[in-house]
């Protein structure tokens, strides 16, 4: 049950990542459309005010987004949005790792200390430079949501395991009852012949009791008296 909950939790994290990544795909389509419109009108992407508007609009729609970076394959940041206005100190590293990852595929995921990033290839501009978008989500927001699901799953597991263990224990007790009475008799007869002064006799004697007497007599080095005692 624990393994099931543990694995389900990981699967859930995968699904959340997948869904968030596909959300980034929808944002990217918006950005791509804006950029292509600007290119058709002969506007330079770097000077495009509309880009900033789109980035802000995207950030308004998804409050978990901390930063959005639009950059090209040469590592130049074309436009960016930073919710906290603090400025990323490590943006060059992020862009560099994104460019590395973009070589393996058109989408990628990036984990930093504070963010979870979903990157996508957007389009290739008129001079053949690839343009990418990176949506950095606040890691804490992710983690707090994950904590809730973790807590719920553990509670669910305990809620089911508790009664299950009780039911199982009860049923096992009932299953063991027939064997328990046989065991009690074994205990009683053994104790009668070997503990109670070796000469004790139980209330009723079974074949097992007779074998106990036989062994007791053999141990004492005398002829077995079990049959005599029965008579």
């Amino acid at each position, binding site marked *: *049950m624990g*393994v099931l909950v543990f694995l389900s939790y*990981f699967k859930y994290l995968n699904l959340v990542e*997948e869904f968030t990544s596909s959300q980034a795909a929808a944002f990217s389509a918006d950005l791509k459309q804006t950029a292509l419109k600007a290119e058709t009108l002969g506007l330079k992407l770097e000077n495009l005010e509309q880009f900033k508007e789109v980035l802000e609009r995207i950030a308004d729609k998804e409050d978990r987004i901390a930063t959005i970076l639009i950059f090209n394959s040469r590592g130049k940041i074309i436009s960016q949005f930073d919710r906290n206005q603090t400025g990323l100190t490590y943006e060059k590293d992020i862009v560099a790792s994104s460019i590395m990852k973009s070589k393996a595929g058109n989408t990628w995921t990036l984990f930093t200390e504070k963010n979870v990033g979903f990157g996508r290839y957007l389009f290739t501009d008129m001079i053949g430079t690839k343009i990418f978008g990176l949506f950095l989500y606040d890691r804490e927001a992710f983690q707090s*949501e994950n904590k809730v699901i973790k807590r719920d799953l553990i509670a669910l597991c305990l809620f089911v395991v508790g009664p299950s263990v009780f039911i199982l224990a009860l049923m096992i007790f009932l299953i063991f009852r027939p064997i328990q009475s046989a065991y009690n008799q074994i205990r009683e007869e053994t104790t009668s012949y070997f503990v109670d002064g070796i000469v004790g006799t139980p209330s009723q004697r079974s074949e097992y009791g007779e074998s106990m007497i036989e*062994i007791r007599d053999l141990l004492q080095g005398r002829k077995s008296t079990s049959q005599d005692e029965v008579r």
Partner: protein
Amino acid sequence: MINPLEAANSELPKLKRELFGVIMLVVVAATLVVSWKTLDLFEEKLNPLITKKVSLIGEQIADDLALVAINGIPFSRVPDLKKYLQTTAQQHPEIDHVALYRNADDLLASGNPERDFDLSFNISGTDQFRLQIWIDQKFTQKSMENIIFDIGVLIFVGFILCIEITLSLVAFNITNPLSRFRLVLLRYQAGDFSRVLLLRGKDAIASSSRVIAKAVNDRARQEQGDKVVGQNKKFGSVKPLQQRSVADVRIPLFIFVFADELQKSFMPVFVKEVGTSLTFLPLDVLLGLPIMAFMAMIAIFTPLAGRWSDAYGSKKIYLFGLIPAFSGHLVCGFANDVVWIVFGRALTGFGYAMIVICCQGYIAGISESKERASGMAAFVGILMSASMAGIAIGGILVERIGFQNIFALSAGLTLIAGLIAYSFFISEDMKSREGFAREKTSFLKILSNTKFLVTILMSAIPAKIILTGFIYFIIPLYLFSLGSSAAETARVMMIYPILVIALGPLSAWVAGHGARTFKVLVFGCFFSGVGLIIFHQSQTVLAVILMIFLMGVAHAFMKAPQINFIMEIAETEMPDQGRTAILGLLRTLERIGSVIGPLLAGALVAFFGFSNAILVIGCLISGSAVAMLCYFAKLNLNASTVDND
């Protein structure tokens, strides 16, 4: 009055059945409840994410449409507007349907949904029109399909664990103490007081055994005192009674094999990811080297380990075997080149050979013949069930914890298996050196039997080639190339052992009820390759499943007839060499196939690609069956010609 010992003993089969049934029922019911509630919980948490995404897409479409409206262009004049809406719905699997409505009338819609819309958007520049979106209500469930499969696999693994745990618990707490207690009482009744039974626990058998043991020990001490004055009788030094049981082996073997199988669903993919600096061999061939090294070590060391186990005892060899097995897992975990993985797997193979053979030897040493026979069947069952559970769990876990951690987990489990074996195994099981020195088998004499040799070459070795080459090597790589996850690969790979176990009794029944063993063997061998030939070109997971299904069914039906047929054709050697030696030789020689399999498959993949490699292996296996049929048909023809002459 009824003998309580016999009464308890006669209750055991019923008790086992009921216990297993109850545990299964509770575990399955609890798992289903947890699974159902988990899926509900996930759906509840994931639905807002989907709605959020669809809402974003809706806003984007509404923005585009607003551009049209603001510029005063009527929607009816926009070319391909309906196609645009349909394409948008198709691009996003979360969207079931998109429609543009004017008032209440459907103006432009990409379908005609029967229920109310989920999201509605205003379009700037026009009051009459509204964009409405229907979310695919089954999308979350579809996304969770993998989880449902994993839950199914976990329930299945839970089922296996229930069997193992129930059998072990009953054996340790009831069956073994009872049988040992009965044995010691019989000894005492026969006047043999050389052993005492010391059982731990508070139950009646344990306490009774201790009470009697005390009396025997007291008597022995008393006699020791008498001996001093020269009156010694039959009480010598009293030793504890130790008796082997399958239960001693069950859990340590299960955990060890389970730990080793965790890597099976992803090994070639892992090797590919680690990469290599070696350039003298194609990468695809290198990918098969770890499996080959593992199989080779098993093939080489199994016969030797059997002798070591006889000479030094199963417990010592088991514990010694853990050292290379544990180190092998760690080496693989830290490997940064194929060479290290090959070395790691070779080490693990060495340990595996020792551990598995000493467990087999341990069971073979059980004194009661009936328990020994059922123990051997249990041994095969433990190996198969641990293999299934290991492959399945490994495939699920690797997606989250990564390759390296799986090897660390395997190493940890190996240690746990060692700790359990240390406390469960009985040390006193060495054969006398004279005993095993006499056991010499003339393998050359058996091999000079051409029929035996042809059967090995044309049936046993090809069966192993297809197993290690196709299932263990090609399947993980092929499915990975088709976009399957490790968990999916594991589920597909599990089909084979499930079929072999499930159809095993049926196969044995067919073999034992008049079916001609040779015909079943040839058909089995032939059909195991046919699936590969038929489906090699359809590059889908379903085709792979069908290939494995046909192969699994064929192999399940081949197993029993193969042994029967070998025994038939080696009947002249049987009196001198013995059944065990002939079967041992069969098992040793078929491992050549296990070693060749991954290497051959790697080379074929490197030169012809996956589809053609699968075709070639299929042809090779089915072809070998035809060749065997031709050889034996020719022999029969010659024999009948001689008879006629």
